[in-house]
């Protein structure tokens, strides 16, 4: 009798060999304007962090797969994407060694230990960032002014509004990205171009970003209506902080977000609610990272809960 191997694994069960590298390439293309914006605003700091991050993510992926005697899959570009995204959510003045450590957590802990691409529960780049945020809170709240690169502490637009209590916002700077923040999160313009490209190519699903942005708008509108001198308006909450990079490139990660349509709506709304709760009432100025990670953890549950029923059952 011919021996056959049956693999038993949770869904999705349809794997297509071609689609991963192609999808990853699309994401990289969409990230090009973001990369340009980050290099424009943060100069050499952006270039160095980006190169270190990509190189170490690819190296850790290949190295760990070699050590675990797995097939080496760096040619599917997923490690490159993780590397770029990781660098894009880092503060510009992060030390190089901390960046490498974060990449190890992202690729090693969040991805390879869970079984590699497709098996990870949490978005690797975000888990790497969460690790660094918990390990080196001082580095992760040290920001630079764009272009001049002067060091400013704790003064991202969100931090200013929350702790400085100033609602004096320059929306144009916020839109093009001329504010302090993580490398790739500041320029809403570049992120929107990338997002649009991904939506047109149908690489990402429109439901999660719509649910996310829509709910954030709604909550901030109500908060602003109730006490306009404390809470800033909806547009500010969309443009400031990591909301756009999170909703376009991380919440839509096909591995860590639900596969069903209803699940995606719930996922987006959940992300938005957690983000806004942290931003408005939490101890931190920004909550996108924890919101997406928390909803990542709920994804298997959402998939199960919203599984389409067969007719007749």
């Amino acid at each position, binding site marked *: 009798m011919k021996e056959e191997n049956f693999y038993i694994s949770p869904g999705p069960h349809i794997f297509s060999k071609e689609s991963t590298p192609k999808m990853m390439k699309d994401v990289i293309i969409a990230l090009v304007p973001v990369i340009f914006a980050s290099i424009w605003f943060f100069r050499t700091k952006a270039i160095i962090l980006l190169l270190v991050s990509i190189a170490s993510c690819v190296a850790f992926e290949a190295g760990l797969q070699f050590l675990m005697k797995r097939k080496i899959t760096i040619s599917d570009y997923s490690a490159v994407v993780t590397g770029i995204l990781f660098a894009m959510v880092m503060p510009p003045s992060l*030390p190089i060694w*901390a960046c490498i450590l974060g990449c190890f957590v992202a690729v090693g*802990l969040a991805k390879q230990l869970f079984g590699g691409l497709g098996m990870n529960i949490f978005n690797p780049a975000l888990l790497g960032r969460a*690790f660094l945020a*918990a*390990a*080196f*809170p001082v*580095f992760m709240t040290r920001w630079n002014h764009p272009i001049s690169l002067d060091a400013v502490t704790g003064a991202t637009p969100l931090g200013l509004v929350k702790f400085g209590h100033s609602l004096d916002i320059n929306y144009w700077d916020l839109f093009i990205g001329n504010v302090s923040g993580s490398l790739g999160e500041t320029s809403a313009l570049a992120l929107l171009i990338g997002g649009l490209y991904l939506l047109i190519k149908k690489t990402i699903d429109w439901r999660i970003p719509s649910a996310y942005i829509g709910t954030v708008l709604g909550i901030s509108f109500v908060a602003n209506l109730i006490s306009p001198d404390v809470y800033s308006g909806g547009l500010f909450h969309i443009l400031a902080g990591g909301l756009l990079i999170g909703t376009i490139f991380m919440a839509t990660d096909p591995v860590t977000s639900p596969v069903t349509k209803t699940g995606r709506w719930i996922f987006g709304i959940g992300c938005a609610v957690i983000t806004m709760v942290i931003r408005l009432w939490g101890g931190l100025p920004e909550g996108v990272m924890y919101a997406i990670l928390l909803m990542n953890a709920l994804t298997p549950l959402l998939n199960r809960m919203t599984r389409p029923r067969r007719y007749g059952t």
Partner: protein
Amino acid sequence: MDSLKCASCGKELCKGLWRENPIFFQVLGMCPTLAVTTKALFGFSMGMATTFVLISSSLVISCIRKLIPPQVRIATFTVIIATFVTCADYFLKANFYTISKELGPYVPLIVVNCIILGRQEAFVSKHGVAKSLLDALGMGIGFSAVLVLLGSIRELFGFGTIFYYKILGEGFENWVIMALPAGAFITLGFLVGLFNWINIRLRQRRNSA
């Protein structure tokens, strides 16, 4: 007297150290394991307090086990364990005030540590004094060793020291996460993984030999 014909005594002592290690193998007593191991010294103190409670309650319970009616055995065990825990707590507070302040509520919480009640129920209530003591000693040392190991790793990365002895130099930036609960989970995860990996290796070697 079972202490005289104790061929399996070495086994009773050693099983707690590795093969049936309370943390790695039985995964019991997670609350103190995760909570107090921010520094090696706290892990050590916790391990010692737990070992004391484990040994003394094993001694008392193995002596009177035949007198305890099975219906009220859990209640009796709990009273005895709680007494020793309170003694340990008072002792720490009286003689090691700063350590007891760091350990906080986790010393009184030894009462609900599953290792202790678990050993009484699973082992002591069925065995004699000598075996019970060896079992308690083995389990206690196994538990303490893991706590010290976990505490050392977390203290090393979180503060650059082990038992307050500076190991990592000035250039080292403390990893705050290692002093937080998240660091405990990550370190414990790695250690349990390592434990299983070594066990699988050992089994493979035994099978092929």
